[in-house]
């Protein structure tokens, strides 16, 4: 591991059989993992499309209900640009409009915002699946936030509450 979290991620995927010590390292070092990242000791065959065929369609189908709230806002007051909030523009330097929470980092995930905010990351814990397997969750970038208050979109001030999950 060379300190570049992307490489840590790649290294983790190369190995299908980590020791527990390695798991702790990987769990603490992973980057860009999700709101609920689950780990299992034994290899699991995840849904895989080796050819890549159909992945875009598959994503669009899966993402549609998850994006319904923002899609509805984007379609509202469309003649003025829609009511969906803006991402933080200068985060484009990351190539993803995202960054991990931390000291002196922008807490909000939306721009032109005024209100209450909370953010946290590095969630870790344990859980159990429907087969009774004990499965840990979380990485250093497992983060949640909320923004509640006023935001500017579609050429006017609006009120709303949003979460990064």
């Amino acid at each position, binding site marked *: 591991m060379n300190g570049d979290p992307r490489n840590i991620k790649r290294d983790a995927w190369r190995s299908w059989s980590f020791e527990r010590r390695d798991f702790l390292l990987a769990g603490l070092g992973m*980057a860009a993992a999700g709101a*609920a990242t689950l780990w299992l000791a*034994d290899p699991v065959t*995840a849904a895989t499309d080796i050819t890549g065929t159909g992945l875009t369609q598959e994503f669009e189908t899966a993402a549609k209900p998850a*994006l319904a709230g923002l899609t509805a806002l984007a379609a509202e007051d469309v003649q003025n640009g829609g009511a969906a909030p803006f991402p933080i523009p200068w985060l484009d330097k990351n190539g993803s409009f995202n960054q991990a929470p931390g000291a002196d980092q922008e*807490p909000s995930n939306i721009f032109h915002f005024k209100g209450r905010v909370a953010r946290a*990351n590095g*969630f870790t814990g*344990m859980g159990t699946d429907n087969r009774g397997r004990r499965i840990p969750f979380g990485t250093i970038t497992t983060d949640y936030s909320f923004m*509640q208050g006023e935001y500017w979109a579609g050429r006017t001030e609006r009120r709303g509450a949003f979460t990064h999950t």
Partner: protein
Amino acid sequence: MNQFHDIHTPIAPNNLYWVTVIPQGALTVSADGRRATLAMRDVPVVDQPRWPARDTPTVPARLSFRVEWVATEEPVTYDDPLRQFRFTGWRASARLEAQVEVPSEGFRWQSDPLNTSSASFGIIGEEVNGRYFQL
């Protein structure tokens, strides 16, 4: 050890990153702003087990979760004129409990109770950014 589920909101077409709308009543913030609970049930999300790989398989999933933030006595102020944000609040402890369901795989998972989780970093407070930074 293998990451085999990565549950999150998808990136929106306008590049909002894993952001979703909080429904009415899901967020409770104390009057003094020092404690907050966000609880959402059956949130439509996606499972991308190979995230952050590009062009990774994606299946629909549902996420229910409760997050609690509680302010500590440590005040925090970030003021960044260059990036146009100002935050005033406190460091916070945070805990999470969650349930995940991936119907296409018949997979369900539930975390242990809230008080068994931990977070390495948390803040809670008030912020202005963008056009509100100058007002």
